[in-house]
């Protein structure tokens, strides 16, 4: 049993409030990813779970036991650090054995467990080497082997893939997910990379400025972001945002700005008429060649299977649309576009909260 409960957890560094009262339950065996921009408090939250930081107030429980006063080593967890933190003066074998040695595990058992962990991470041939002699991917596996060897019920990972090159990072994602399937332990993983969060997580926690913006499954967060911040953080390219207000002139609600007027359907209560809003539309819901609004192409970004078209239409910022890879559009071409109303995200202009 390794459920983690955070109750009103606050962390203050001098005058700076890094984490402003976080309430979160990490279910047993779950792969939970905390994601957010630098300085949003995700790593601080992770460090409070690990015990490297003490919460200023609030309660942290692992497996039902309050751990606020326990040392990191007494919490029964394993951690992989951003720069891996392998001991440079020890061999791979001794790095993996470290956690067992400090717990005075008998030599025979230690040797057997180190070799089993190395075997599991496919690094048995590296045991005699020093970390400096290992490649980036190998070091990553050593760090994982060092963590799994102590059989922790909770794995904490602080941006462990950030030092790898793009290709290796994608491979390691699959590997981590497989490791989670096999171990069935609770994983808490911190990253600023939304793609990592989307691909690996059972649930995602989006943080910003020390508070949780949204908790949910990857698709929930993508399809129904709770705030403009979450909407902008997830998805590539970034969601299109149009500032305007809700207009109720013809009896139905519509989005109106200087250059656009789009009916919003009946997803919103009529009481919102006149409210300043931000309309969010993902690039896949911008339909080029469908509607009647004219625009002019600025830039084409081919992605291979499809292309991104950046065009301006008289609004504050250009829009981006996903189109077929075979598009004939060229910069400077004129086009017409419309929106798919199914992809509307309506946010309050002042608070950023979702309205529909």
């Amino acid at each position, binding site marked *: 049993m390794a459920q983690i409960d955070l109750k009103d957890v606050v962390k203050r560094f001098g005058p700076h409030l890094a984490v402003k009262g976080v309430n979160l339950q990490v279910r047993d065996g779950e792969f939970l990813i905390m994601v957010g921009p630098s300085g949003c408090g995700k790593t601080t939250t992770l460090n409070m779970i690990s015990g490297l930081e003490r919460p200023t107030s609030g309660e942290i429980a692992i497996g039902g036991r309050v751990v606020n006063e326990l040392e*990191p080593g007494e919490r029964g967890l394993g951690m992989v650090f951003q720069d891996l933190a392998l001991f440079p003066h020890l061999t791979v074998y001794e790095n993996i054995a*470290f956690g067992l040695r400090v717990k005075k595990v008998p030599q025979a058992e230690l040797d057997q467990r180190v070799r089993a962990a190395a075997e599991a991470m496919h690094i048995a041939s590296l045991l005699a080497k020093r970390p400096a002699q290992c490649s980036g991917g190998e070091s990553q596996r050593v760090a994982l082997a060092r963590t799994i060897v102590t059989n922790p019920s909770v794995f904490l990972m602080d941006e462990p893939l950030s030092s790898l090159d793009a290709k290796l990072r994608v491979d390691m994602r699959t590997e981590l997910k497989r490791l989670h399937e096999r171990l069935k332990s609770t994983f808490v993983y911190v990253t600023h990379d939304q793609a990592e969060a989307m691909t690996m997580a059972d649930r995602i926690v989006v943080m910003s400025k020390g508070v949780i913006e949204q908790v949910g499954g990857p698709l929930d967060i993508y399809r129904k972001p709770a705030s403009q911040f979450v909407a902008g953080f997830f998805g590539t390219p970034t969601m299109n945002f149009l500032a305007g207000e809700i207009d109720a002139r013809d009896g139905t609600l519509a989005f109106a700005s200087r250059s656009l007027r789009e009916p919003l359907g009946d997803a919103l209560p009529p009481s919102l008429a006149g409210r300043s809003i931000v309309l969010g539309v993902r690039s896949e819901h911008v339909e080029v060649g469908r509607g009647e609004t004219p625009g002019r192409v600025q830039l084409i970004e081919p992605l291979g299977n499809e292309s991104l078209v950046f065009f301006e239409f008289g609004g504050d910022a250009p829009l981006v649309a996903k189109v077929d890879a075979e598009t004939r559009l060229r910069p400077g071409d004129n086009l017409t576009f419309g929106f798919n109303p199914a992809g509307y995200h309506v946010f309050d202009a002042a608070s950023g909260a979702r309205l529909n």
Partner: protein
Amino acid sequence: MSEAQVSQAPRTAPGARSGSFGRGLGAWLAQERVFRLIPFVAVEVIFVLVIIIPFLLTIYISFLKWRANRPFEQAYLSGFGNYQAVLTDPGFWSALGRTFYFAGAAVTLELALGFVLAMLVARTVRGKAAYITILLVPMMIVPVVVGYNFTMLYIDSGPINQLLAPFTQAMGLDPRIRWLSDPVAAQWAVILADVWQWTSLTFLIFLSGFSALPRQLVNAARVMGASAWQIFWRVELPLLRPAIVIAVVIRAMEALKIFDPVVLLTAGGPGTSSQSIAFYLWEQVWVFNKFSFGAAASIILLVIFAVLIFFGIWLLVRSSAAVGRERAA
């Protein structure tokens, strides 16, 4: 006056004053192939003047029979006579042995104290800058002042004896330790003054070592359940090895030349019981005027110390190469 006129004035002035020769020399020096050699030539000239020539002269003098209170014209070549005299002089060997004893004791204490102080200060959060400044003061004080201060501290009824009195009396010893006139106490008087002054340096070296320790490694060890003691022995100490080697090499090289506290505190006494090799050399040359004897002794010392320094540098290069390899990734 406009700016153009101001900047023109100095450009024409030197040529006009030093004439065509000066202009020619200036132009020759300004050539790319000449100009880039100027710094090298300057360094080489200084090197030859202050190192090579005195060194060759020392070798030459070491083969002469010459005392400075006689005219140089009476000096004559004596082959290896001086070398034989040095190597058979028991005073030379006992001064050399005592120097190793001083250096060994002083450097050991300096390393231990500097290490502990650095460890404590590295963990301090508040007032760190103040502690560092205070702990570096001894190193910045002129050795003559240190020596003078210690002669006052060491007097029979001085503060050191007063502070030690409760302990010396408890052990049934005479509380008036004769720091500067007892043969054994005088040696420790010299050692302790050196320790007081140079612990600052080892402290500084270790402090930089401690601040360079990657915080994440300690965190990783903590999460794996290592105690503070295990973290120290298994993580911090091995990673500080290069700093330890640097401190040992630098301090040992310096301590083998120990001179100031000997002159200022004991003048090598009582008798010759606190003479270091540097003091012995100085006394032979400048008190007994045995210039050629001193020259031979310094050549012998040069050979002995060169071997030690070579060994020290070998240790240094080896350990920094090891760390370089480890940090390469």
